């Protein structure tokens, strides 16, 4: 009876452990996976001209410290702008309501996140509030395009002039 019982307990432990691991992998790892339990904190929205590849689950940070996450990204068909819904953790309830939000990049190749710069107002953001001042994501391709467009127009003005003014241009 004794060995039979330890066998069943062992198997039970193994199966429980296995399913706990499976549960963790399927629910906790994918940011877009199943979510259990409502998040605490409050919601604010921000409208951007362009959010790049910001996704639901991306971090929201202030001074480099994570204070919440992006809950949803949607599109406002009236003014053709992207609406990001941010969920801010409840302990950060003293963010001035004239703060600005900008889409930034973690490192050179990292994911996008929203950085919030504090404003100077005495009233604070509340649940359902909106951040008015926003700055869009910098799209690397458009920067590169702009750079090459400048370069090309400069080149067409004349090769001799370009080489002559090249050093003074760099000096600026």
């Amino acid at each position, binding site marked *: 009876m004794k060995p039979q019982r330890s*066998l*069943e307990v*062992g*198997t039970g*432990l*193994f*199966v429980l*452990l*296995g*399913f706990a*691991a*499976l549960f*963790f*992998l*399927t629910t*906790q*790892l*994918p*940011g*877009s*996976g*199943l979510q259990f339990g409502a998040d605490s904190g409050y919601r604010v929205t921000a409208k951007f001209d362009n959010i790049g590849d910001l*996704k639901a*689950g*991306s*971090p929201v940070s202030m001074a480099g410290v*994570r204070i919440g*996450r992006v809950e949803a990204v949607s599109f406002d068909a009236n003014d053709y702008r992207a609406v990001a819904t941010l969920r801010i953790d409840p302990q950060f309830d003293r963010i001035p309501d004239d703060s600005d939000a900008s889409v930034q990049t*973690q*490192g*050179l*190749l*990292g*994911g996008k996140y929203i950085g919030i710069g504090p404003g100077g107002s005495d009233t604070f953001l509340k649940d359902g509030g909106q951040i008015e001042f926003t700055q869009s994501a910098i799209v690397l391709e458009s920067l590169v395009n702009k750079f090459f467009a400048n370069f090309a127009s400069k080149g067409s003005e004349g090769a001799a002039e370009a080489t002559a003014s090249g050093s003074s241009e760099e000096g600026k």
Partner: protein
Amino acid sequence: MMLAPVQRIGRVGVFLGRLLLQCGPALLRPRAVVHQVFNAGARSLIIIMLCGLFVGMVLGLQGFDLLQRFGSEDALGVAAALGLLKELGPVVTALLFAGRAGTSLTSEIGLMRATDQLTAMEIMAVDPLRHVVAPRFLGGLIAMPLLVAIFNLVGLFGAQLIGVQLLGVDPGAFWSQMQSAVELDDVVEGIVKSLCFGVACSLIAVFEGYNAEPTAAGVGLATTRTVVISSVLTLLIDYMLTAAFLGR
């Protein structure tokens, strides 16, 4: 002479068909299956967790070394999670499973064959496929995805241990980038792979044991073949499944 390998593949196919027919009746006696889940799963737990930890730690070191060159060591969590979930977890677990559980299945069934226990069952009109082979096959099949999940979890812990604790990757970036990059599809891919490996490794192990030559040397040979064939088959199936998942 040329036909021998083809005939062997055909025998595995026929064996699988007969085995699947007996799996239903075998499930009606869950105690035997539970016993085999214990043998194949719970007894492999220590080696799986130990290997998972070291594989994760190596991933942490190598991944950090590579990502550091691009200044994006924050992506270490993504690299470790995807590497473990999609490839290393299922494959390494299947290879360990073949060595740890597959060999014991083969030698156990082969020894039953060599000592005429299976023949005795057949004489008593007890189907050895139903009472001996099917529970062992099912036990391996059930144990494999659970072992892979545990392997992945311990591996992630190992990668986190090296990356965050030792090399100073920001823990928030490690987990949040992992969570934003890993999709549910990636987890499902790992589970599908582990199920396929479970079928392949368990089937080869019981087939080789059941068809072992009933001598001491025959059982030894069958055990060796289990490890070799299971390992090769695991890597082959892994390539095909990866190609299929990437091609979707």
